[in-house]
């Protein structure tokens, strides 16, 4: 199936430690993605972004000198960009706009703006009932989900560490990855790294880097006249489950399930059709729970699924082929870069890390504390 909408351009901003401003990085990402598509800002009538300011899309439109007929600044953390693909697809199909740029950029490493707590406005319930106990946000939530999952199914930290070990193997193949030259790591390296919020160590946690990216969407009809192989939006789905640490009854049950079910149903595919899987890996457990929730295995089986090199380069389930948030880049909201890598894999542009013959890719974002979950199914339209 197709939605009739395609991604026609994709690009990263500078990554890592840039010394640049948010809008400077945003501009890099947007103009590079448009150049990749063979389009210009004059073609853009839709803008979706977050993380610029209170009025994110408004701010970016002003900065770029664009007067959009459609914008979206849904703030849902790292999954917002997969949600934007759904919204943009609907807006293009409905005729409200023709050409949408979805973008994000952060300078959090250069600006040293990342905090471990103090994230709640004083008027939300979490400020009264949760923050007083000093959980790390978001690390302690993912840590508690890990504890619950390992306890439920009898898995080990060593098994979970494979997510980080495999991500590093991919990063060694990606010159743009922050850890490209850092060498391989072992499960023991992950376990022996400094503890952050048990059982998660620093090596279970994503990088804190600058970076950003952008993708350009337009109708599939128009996409066929542009320079790149169109990447069709085949399906999408999302779930929003919680802001509180205590809303979700069972932390061992992944919230990704409904999002994946909806996306795969819309696309008319099953997990067996997926050639490349790009899932949010803010923490090792984030990726593991997402893979399980998307239905690549049954409940309690993901730690066995990811073993034996299956998610490493050359494995049967290529996962986070750019090196992921764990070893490539994590600018705070990583979801747009899931899309960029999925597009590049489907176009066959990934060099040493290219998954041969990739036709179907899934990008799955997660935001907050397993709060939001959004899946996009993409297919090469050769």
């Amino acid at each position: 199936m197709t939605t009739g909408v395609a991604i026609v351009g994709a690009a990263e901003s500078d990554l890592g430690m840039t010394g640049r401003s948010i809008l400077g990085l945003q501009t890099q990402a947007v103009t590079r993605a448009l150049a990749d598509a063979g389009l210009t800002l004059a073609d853009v009538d839709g803008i979706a972004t977050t993380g610029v300011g209170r009025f994110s899309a408004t701010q970016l439109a002003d900065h770029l000198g664009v007067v959009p007929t459609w914008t979206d600044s849904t703030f849902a953390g790292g999954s917002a960009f997969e949600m934007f693909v759904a919204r943009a697809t609907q807006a293009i199909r409905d005729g409200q706009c023709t050409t949408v740029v979805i973008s994000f950029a952060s300078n959090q490493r250069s600006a040293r703006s990342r905090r471990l707590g103090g994230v709640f406005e004083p008027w939300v319930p979490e400020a009264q009932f949760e923050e007083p106990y000093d959980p790390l946000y978001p690390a302690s939530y993912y840590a508690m989900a890990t504890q619950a999952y390992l306890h439920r199914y009898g898995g080990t930290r060593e098994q979970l560490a494979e997510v980080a070990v495999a991500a590093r193997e991919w990063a060694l193949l990606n010159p743009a990855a922050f850890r490209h030259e850092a060498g391989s790591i072992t499960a023991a390296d992950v376990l022996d790294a400094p503890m952050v919020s048990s059982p998660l160590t620093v090596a279970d946690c994503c990088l804190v880097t600058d970076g950003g990216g952008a993708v350009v969407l337009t109708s599939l009809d128009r996409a066929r006249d542009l320079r790149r192989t169109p990447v069709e939006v085949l399906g999408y789905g999302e779930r929003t489950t919680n802001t509180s640490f205590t809303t979700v009854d069972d932390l061992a049950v992944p919230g990704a399930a409904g999002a994946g079910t909806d996306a795969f149903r819309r696309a008319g595919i099953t997990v067996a059709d997926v050639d490349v899987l790009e899932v949010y890996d803010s923490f090792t457990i984030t990726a593991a729970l997402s893979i399980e929730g998307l239905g690549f295995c049954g409940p309690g089986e993901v730690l066995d699924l990811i073993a034996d090199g299956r998610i490493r380069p050359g494995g049967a389930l290529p996962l986070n082929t750019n090196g992921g948030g764990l070893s490539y880049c994590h600018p705070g909201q990583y979801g747009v870069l899931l899309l960029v890598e999925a597009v590049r894999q489907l176009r066959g542009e990934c060099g040493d890390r290219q998954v041969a013959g990739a036709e179907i890719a899934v990008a799955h974002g997660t935001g907050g504390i397993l709060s939001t979950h959004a899946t996009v199914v993409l297919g090469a339209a050769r």
Partner: protein
Amino acid sequence: MTWIPGEVPPADEMTADWWEATREHRLTVQACTACGHLQHPPRALCTGCGDTDHLVQQAVSGGGTVDTYTVVHRAPRPDVETPYVVARVRLDEGPILLTRLPSEPSIGDDVTVAWVDLPDGRALPVFNPTTEETS
């Protein structure tokens, strides 16, 4: 526990009764007398049936079990000592609270409420392992 909580925001009209009870070290959850649903934190409606007019704070036993937990090794604010244990405790009555425990537990351990007083007279519920004395 050598823990001095940070500043806790003031109660609002939804949460005032919950905080008032903490001054007497009474733990409550919000109950809907229309449908019997229990919830925490307090809200302006019942998430079970949508009713807005039959919500009361109801005393609970103070007993619960450890749902899951983490030992935090990095301080999210200055003046907080690490490591410390943050946990989700499932009250015997059902609702889940985020809280602190004095030491690393096992999932499923029985725990009982205790209190850490705040400078303004309110108190934060924390939990200790249930002993024969407290059960």
